[in-house]
C-alpha cells in the first residue's frame, strides 16, 4: 500500500472512535470527544468505554471489537500499560490508524516506559499505523479532524502542511497560523514517533497534491540520512521551512581545529540546510512570517526591492533590513525619479529608494502615484510598504484627518491591491504592533480588518520591517536555487 492511502485515515477518516471517554468531562478522552464533535458536524464519532452506556447523548460502544466496520481512525486515551493490547485489538479489528496522545512511555525514563514503547514500536508493522504516543495528534480541517483541544480552530483548509515532535508547538502553530493568513492542510504532532515520524510525514507531504509547502519543528531525528534525502527531494518542488531547535553555537571555535572537530552538530545542520535547499528558521514567529510570505506571493527570485515609507528613519532602517536579508535596494531610473519628484513634496522627502512620503499619512492620490510610478518602472521585483496609514479609518484614528482635512478617499486601502493585481507586483505590508494611545482598541481592530483584506488579496502583512525583509529574502533565495526567474 502506498504512503498516501496508508496515511489517509489520519487526515480524512470515514469514522472515528474515541477510546477512553469518561464521566469526568475534564478528562482528555472526554475533552477530545467533545472537541471533535464540535469541530465536525458530519464526521461520525463513536465513544468507547466498557463501563458506560451513554455519553453526551450518544450510545457508547463497550469495546474496540464492537465498533462499526467503517471506523478507520481510533484515538486511544488509556493508561500507558493498556495501550499495546488496545493497539493489537485495533489491528485485529481491521482499523488502519491509531492516535495515542497519552504519555507514560520512553519519555518518563523508567524501564516500564521503555518496555511499553518497545512494544508499540514492534506493533507498528502489523497493519496499523500509529501516531504518538505523547503527542497532540492531527489537525486536518478538510477531514474534520482537529488537534487537541482545537475545537475552535479554523475549519478552512489551505496548502501548508506542518509536522513537529512537540504537541504544544503544533497547537501553537495551528492557533497562530490564521492571523498570518496561513491556512493549513495537515498538521501532525508525532511525539515519541513509535511509527509515524519526520520521514513518514516528509514522504507523505511530498506526494500529497494538496500540500503546497511544508513547515516543521524538529528536536532530534530518528531517520538521519534518509530524512536528509527526503527533505532534499521535497524542497525541489515544495518550499520546506524547518525550525531546528537545540542548536548551540561553537562552530567558529571548532572550525579552527582539524577535520574531526570541524563537524560539530551546528556545522552538520548548517550543511543540511545548504545542501537540501530547505529554509532554516529560528523560532515560531520566524516560521510563520516565512510561510506567510511564501503563501501569499507568486514565486520570484528577483531580489530588487523598492521601499515606500512615511519618514526618513523608517527608510534607513528598511534599507538596512533589506541588505541584511540578502536583498538589494532597487535603483530607480531617471524617468521614475522624475515622476516621484513631481508627485512628492519638494522638500525633505527622498525621491529615490527608499521613497519617503514625508509623513505616515500621505494624501491617497500621492500614495497611488508613488506606487504606480515604482510598479511601472520595472526597476523593482517587490515593493515593501512600511509606516503608512492605508485606510481612511486608520487616518482618522491617527488624528491626521485634522491635519489634512481635504482628504477622504475611500479607495485608499485598495491602492496596494491594485498595484499587486494590475502590475503583477510583489507587495508586502508592514503593520506594526503599536497602536495610538487615544484610540487603541479601534485602531487595533482596524489593523486586523486591513490585514485580513490584504492577505485575502495576495499581500502578506508582517509586524516588522525585519520580518518582511527576512521572509522575502528567504523566498528569493529559495526560488533562485530552483532556477525560477
Amino acid at each position, binding site marked *: 500500500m502506498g504512503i498516501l492511502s496508508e496515511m489517509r485515515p489520519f487526515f480524512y477518516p470515514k469514522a472515528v472512535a474515541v477510546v477512553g471517554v469518561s464521566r469526568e468531562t475534564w478528562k482528555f478522552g472526554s475533552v477530545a470527544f467533545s472537541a471533535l464533535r464540535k469541530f465536525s458536524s458530519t464526521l461520525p464519532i463513536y465513544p468507547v468505554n466498557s463501563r458506560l452506556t451513554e455519553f453526551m447523548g450518544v450510545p457508547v460502544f463497550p469495546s474496540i471489537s464492537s465498533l462499526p466496520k467503517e471506523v478507520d481512525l481510533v484515538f486511544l486515551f488509556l493508561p500507558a500499560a493498556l495501550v499495546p493490547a488496545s493497539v493489537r485489538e485495533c489491528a485485529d479489528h481491521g482499523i488502519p490508524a491509531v492516535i495515542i496522545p497519552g504519555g507514560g512511555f520512553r519519555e518518563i525514563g523508567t524501564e516500564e516506559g521503555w518496555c511499553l514503547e518497545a512494544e508499540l514500536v514492534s506493533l507498528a508493522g502489523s497493519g496499523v499505523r500509529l501516531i504518538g504516543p505523547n503527542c497532540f495528534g492531527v489537525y486536518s480541517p478538510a477531514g474534520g479532524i482537529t488537534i487537541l483541544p482545537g475545537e475552535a480552530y479554523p475549519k478552512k483548509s489551505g496548502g501548508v502542511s506542518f509536522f513537529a515532535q512537540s504537541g504544544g508547538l503544533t497547537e501553537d502553530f495551528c492557533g497562530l497560523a490564521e492571523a498570518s493568513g496561513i491556512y493549513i492542510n495537515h498538521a501532525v504532532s508525532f511525539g515519541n514517533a513509535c511509527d509515524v515520524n519526520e520521514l513518514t510525514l516528509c514522504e507523505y507531504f511530498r506526494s500529497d497534491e494538496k500540500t503546497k509547502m511544508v513547515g516543521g519543528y524538529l528536536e532530534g*531525528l530518528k531517520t*538521519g*540520512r534518509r530524512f*536528509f534525502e527526503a527533505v532534499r527531494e521535497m524542497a525541489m518542488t515544495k518550499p520546506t521551512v524547518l525550525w531546528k531547535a537545540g542548536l548551540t553555537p561553537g562552530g*567558529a571555535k571548532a*572550525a*579552527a581545529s*582539524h*577535520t*574531526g572537530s*570541524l*563537524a560539530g*552538530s551546528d*556545522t*552538520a545542520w*548548517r*550543511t*543540511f540546510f*545548504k*545542501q537540501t535547499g530547505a529554509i532554516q528558521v529560528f523560532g515560531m514567529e520566524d516560521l510563520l512570517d516565512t510561510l506567510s510570505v511564501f503563501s501569499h506571493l507568486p514565486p520570484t527570485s528577483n531580489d530588487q526591492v523598492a521601499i515606500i515609507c512615511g519618514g526618513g528613519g523608517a527608510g534607513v532602517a528598511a534599507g538596512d533590513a533589506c541588505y541584511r536579508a540578502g536583498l538589494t535596494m532597487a535603483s530607480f531610473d531617471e524617468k521614475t525619479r522624475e515622476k516621484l519628484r513631481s508627485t512628492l513634496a519638494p522638500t525633505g522627502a527622498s525621491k529615490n529608494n527608499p521613497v519617503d512620503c514625508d509623513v505616515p499619512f500621505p494624501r491617497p492620490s500621492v500614495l497611488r502615484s508613488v506606487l504606480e510610478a515604482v510598479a511601472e518602472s520595472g526597476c523593482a521585483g517587490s515593493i515593501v510598504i512600511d509606516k503608512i496609514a492605508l485606510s481612511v479609518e486608520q487616518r482618522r484614528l491617527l488624528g491626521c484627518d485634522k491635519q489634512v482635512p481635504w482628504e477622504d478617499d475611500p479607495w485608499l486601502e485598495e491602492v496596494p491591491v491594485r498595484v499587486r493585481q494590475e502590475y503583477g507586483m510583489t507587495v508586502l505590508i508592514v503593520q506594526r504592533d503599536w497602536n495610538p494611545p487615544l484610540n487603541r482598541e479601534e485602531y487595533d481592530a482596524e489593523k486586523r480588518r486591513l490585514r485580513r483584506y490584504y492577505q485575502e488579496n495576495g499581500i502578506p502583512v508582517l509586524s516588522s520591517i525585519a520580518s518582511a525583509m527576512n521572509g522575502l529574502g528567504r523566498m528569493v533565495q529559495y526560488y533562485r536555487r530552483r532556477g525560477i526567474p
Partner: protein
Amino acid sequence: MNASAHMMREGSRTLTELESKAFLAPAGIPVVESRLARSREEAVRCAEEIGLPVVLKIASPEIVHKSDCGGVRLGLRSAAEVAEAYEQIVLAAGRFHPEARIQGVSVQRMAPPGQETIIGMSKDPQFGPLLMFGIGGVMVEIMGDVSFRFAPLTPNDAREMIREIKGYPLLTGFRGREPVDTDFLERLLLDVSSLVESHPEIKELDLNPVIAYRSGAVVADSRIVLEEVSNG
C-alpha cells in the same frame, strides 16, 4: 593484501601516510609518490631513484603531527643531506615519542610549490560522511574558512564547496597570482566522495596539503583513520 586488511590485523586505526596513499591512488586520487625507507642507505637509494630534491617524513602509526616533533625535512638536494636528515628525523621522533613504533621514513619527491588546499572528511553521527574543503595554512587554522557538504556529492555540491569559501579569489588569480585548476579540485572532491562512500570503514580522512597548480593538483600528505573493527 590491501592496506585496510593490513592495519586491522595490526589492531591499529590510524593509517600511516604510506598506507593512506595506498588507499588513495587506486581511487584515482593523485598522490605524491612515497617510498618507505627503513635505513639511511635505503633512504639515499630511494631519493636517487625518485630524483632530488626530496622530502623525508617520519613513518610511524603513532605520530600524527609529524612536523611538531622534527619529523619532516623538506627540500633535500643531495645524498649527504638525505642521509643526515634520516638520522636526525629518527632520532628526534624517538625522543619526542619514545613509545612510538618507528617504521622508518617516507621518501617523496619535493612537490613544486603551488596553492595549498585541504580536503577532509569526518563522520556525522546523524547524516554520515561530511566532506570539508578549505585553503591550506592560516586560512583554515585561524580564519576557519572552510566549506562542508555531505557525501555523496553532486557535481554542483563540489562546485559550491569551492566557490563558497572566502579565500576563493586566491584560487582564481588574485592580484597576479597563478590561477589554479578548480575544475580539477571539483573532480578531486567527487573522487574523495566516491572513495568514502565505497569504503564505509573510513572514519576520518585528511588530505593536507593538496597542492593545486594551473593544471592539476596533487596530495602531498594524507592521513586516514579507520573504524575500529574487532574481528580478531
